[in-house]
């Protein structure tokens, strides 16, 4: 019952690709989230650390990431939230495999943790199959592969957003005024925000941030060399 005020104060998000801007700004959303208790904020941060790209530190290894995901799944009591994290990470694993193969990796990564979920073994065994034999379970994989083959990266991104949006709609059934409903709302808001915010300027800023983070302590060295 404690989430009723918060959920009722959030505007409907509408459909994914139509909004020019999110119906609620990040600042206002964060001010509303101040209504959450500390334990809920902590859970929210753990989920965000697992499923939000912007929350991924570059220095964290895939193995550490997967270990954190398993810790979350072992401790969170909500089946819906566990399914949310599991399905997002499994989808990310498949996308990672498609991208790896696209950039020329003829064999699956050996001796390292590179994916999450029950499909990793199947993907490794069927690395050379067009859809890793997964299209019966994930029908979108075939289309994703075709889009990657055509270098249609915008279409590829759009497809991923559509799949995640549909997944969130399914997970949200039966949840209206509870914590699961809030997490699903935030995940959907994140999609709307990211899609409506795709701009060349933002991409350049993000690229610079990544380069700066990658250079780390070597930045001064390069700065000195350029003078």
């Amino acid at each position, binding site marked *: *019952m404690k989430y*009723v*005020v*918060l*959920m*009722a*104060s*959030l*505007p*409907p998000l509408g459909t994914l690709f139509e909004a020019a801007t999110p119906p609620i700004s990040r600042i206002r959303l964060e001010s*509303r989230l101040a209504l959450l208790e500390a334990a809920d904020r902590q859970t929210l941060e753990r989920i965000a650390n697992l499923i939000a790209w912007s929350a991924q530190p570059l220095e964290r290894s895939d193995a550490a990431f997967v270990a954190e995901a398993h810790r979350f799944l072992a401790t969170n009591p909500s089946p819906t939230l566990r399914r949310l994290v599991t399905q997002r990470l499994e989808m990310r694993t498949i996308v990672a495999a498609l991208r790896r193969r696209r950039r020329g990796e003829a064999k699956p990564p050996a001796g390292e943790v590179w994916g999450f979920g029950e499909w990793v073994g199947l993907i490794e065994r069927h690395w050379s199959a067009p859809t890793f034999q997964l299209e019966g379970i994930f029908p979108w994989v075939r289309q994703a592969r075709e889009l990657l083959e055509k270098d249609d990266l915008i279409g590829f991104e759009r497809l991923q957003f559509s799949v995640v949006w549909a997944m969130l709609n399914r997970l949200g059934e039966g949840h*209206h*005024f509870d914590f699961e409903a809030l997490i699903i709302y935030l995940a959907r808001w994140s999609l709307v925000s990211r899609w409506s915010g795709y701009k060349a300027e933002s991409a350049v800023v993000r690229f610079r941030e990544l380069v700066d983070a990658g250079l780390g302590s070597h930045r001064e060295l390069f700065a000195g060399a350029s003078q």
Partner: protein
Amino acid sequence: MTNDTSILVLGWIGIYAPVALAAIGASIGCTTAGQAAIGAMMEVSSGYGRFVGLSALPSSMSIYGIVVMFILNRAVTPANSGGLFGIGLLSGLAFLMAGIYQGLCCASAISGSKSKPEIFGLSLAPAAIVEGFAVFAFVFALVAAGGIPR
């Protein structure tokens, strides 16, 4: 406690159960809908009155409970205790659950109509239907109470 005393206790529980359980249901329902009204008022800049008014809808369960209690209220005897207990407890449970779920219906109506005011009237339909079920429980509790010996 003798058997007769135990039976009389059941009768007294039956008399007070409708109002007690209905009050609990109405409290929970009004709290849920009221919280939704507060949340909606954070988002909109007008139309507060109808949100608050709608959040009070589950309070009708208390009224039904009070009326059933008055109808059942009589001298408790071993002959009428069973009837009082059955009708009182079950009608009270019906009001309790109707109050809780009507509160959720009202909360959804408030949440939905805050950004689409034109659906306000239609969004009341689920709460009205739940109210209808509570009225069934209320009316037939009165009818059944007519057969309990005084």
